[in-house]
């Protein structure tokens, strides 16, 4: 027996928004298990679940901050520390997924094409970030002879320079118009 056609308009391939929330929870749990001891990892998992079910609580960003700050307990990584690079990928990805799924109703159908451009932006940002992180850890990470505060200042300076450069490009473009 053939199903009656849906009365709603067809879009491209899509996923329900609650699937994205579920992915966010799984990612949070995975990262917590990777970088944290068992008890804080369980707390993070619960926080991620709360953030997915009740997004207005912003619990997801508490989990993100906990994952990042929990790095303090692990010790300074070296340039070859895979788990740190995974964390460096996971934290911005968590923020991207959580920020977007907070704007979507849970039963909304999210066109996969709508995730394409943000995915490419994230990927581009990750390329820069991972290179920057590798360089910073090589210079200032575990086993290096350089004082680590210099690394902090260098990274902050690079990021600040990036913001200034972007504003300058924007201003020049606006002036030309």
């Amino acid at each position: 027996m053939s199903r009656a056609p849906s009365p709603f308009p067809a879009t491209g391939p899509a996923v329900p928004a609650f699937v994205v929330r579920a992915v966010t929870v799984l990612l949070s749990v995975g990262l917590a298990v990777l970088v944290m001891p068992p008890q804080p990892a369980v707390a993070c998992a619960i926080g991620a679940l709360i953030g997915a079910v009740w997004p207005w609580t912003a619990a997801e960003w508490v989990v993100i901050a906990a994952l990042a700050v929990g790095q303090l307990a692990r010790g300074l990584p070296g340039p070859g520390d895979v788990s740190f690079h995974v964390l460096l990928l996971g934290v911005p990805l968590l923020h991207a997924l959580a920020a977007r799924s907070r704007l979507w109703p849970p039963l909304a159908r999210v066109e996969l094409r709508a995730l394409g451009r943000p995915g490419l932006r994230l990927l581009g940002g990750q390329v820069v970030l991972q290179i920057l992180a590798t360089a910073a850890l090589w210079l200032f990470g575990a086993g290096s002879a350089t004082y680590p505060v210099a690394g902090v200042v260098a990274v902050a300076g690079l990021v600040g320079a990036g913001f200034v450069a972007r504003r300058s490009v924007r201003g020049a473009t606006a002036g030309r118009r």
Partner: protein
Amino acid sequence: MSDPGTAHPPLRSAGSLAGTVAGLVVLVVGVAAGRVDVVLLGVPLLVASLWTRVPSAGGVAQVAVEHAEAPTGRVGYRIRLEPPPSAEALHVRVVLSTGRRRDLVVAPGARELVGSAPTWHTGPVAVATVGHRVLGEDAVWAGPPVGPVRLRRVVLPQRVELDGPLPLPPRLTGLTGLHASVRLGDGGELHDINPFVPGDRLRRIDWRATARLRRGPGDLYVRRTTAQSDATVVIAVDTRDEVSDHVATWTTPAGLVERTTSLDLAREAASSLAAAYVHAGDQVAFHDLADQGRVVPPGAGRRHLDRVRRAAAGMVATGLWTPRLRAPVVARGALVYLVGTHLDDTTSELATTWFLAGHRVVLVDVLPHLDRHDLDAREAVATQLLEGERAERIDGLRDLGIGVLDWRRSGFDADRTGSLRGLVRAGRGHR
């Protein structure tokens, strides 16, 4: 089309603010602890939250909803979307006439979304209602909710073919038509052979009859025929209420969704009866009893039928419960079809008034067969009382001589045709 000029400016999203706070916390902790790895984790959060600027104005898409082609039994709609260039995605909410809704998050860029929904009801229908919200890059900002933009259509009722003879009024007015009148005139069947009197037309002289019957040299006999005449039919619809078969939902608007209602049946009955009589060469008038502005005076022909069908299709329940309905002026000798649920005495009083004034009246019953599910004990008793009173009222009108046509869903058009034949037999002998 949505109007962007009235929208509020876009706002920074809560996720962006939360990301900024989280990024700052991580950055400060990293700097305080002298840990470059922690700083590196905080930087992308700040960049993602602060890199994209929130536009000071705009943030609204151009959205229009239009009619689209659809298979039979469905109504099509087309949603045209033109988001602003700064949009990362567009959140679109589509609500159908049945109340079902779906949220879609679609990619940016001008595009069209096409859908078609089944039609449960006839008459004015809000096919699709569309609202939208623009989502900015990196979910940093979101535009205000805009809408709704509605597509309204008037769904014409299906016409039931009423085969066979139709009931006629007791007096046929007019000088032209397709029905044989008992009055003498031109165009009809042979009435009698009568001696020639001044005023008779010479071409009516029947020479054979004259040769056979004459007694003297000046005697002449003429053929007299009956006149042809048309009937005047008035279709009067009581639109004060609109109820479905599910009694438990009579007090809620949700009860009308995805169920055939009394007004759907009334539109079908009015449209079908008008078509049958117009095709028979008669004149048809239409009155909406609760909306005195919705009147179509008597007329005939295809264009007039379209006017009547449009008037019937445009009927909506007024929801005004008034015990008194002003009886419209009805042409002398007209046949009146009084369409409604007849849940109170108002329509039966009207029917009686018209009947006693000499009109032939037929009550058309469009109350659906009642479904008593989900009724508690008190409601069940109240429903039983209501049905009993209504049946008694209709029986009283039947005893008076007013015909009753049951238009409720029986599944077979032949049932209605059979009912009409019964009314024809009961009403033989028009003048």
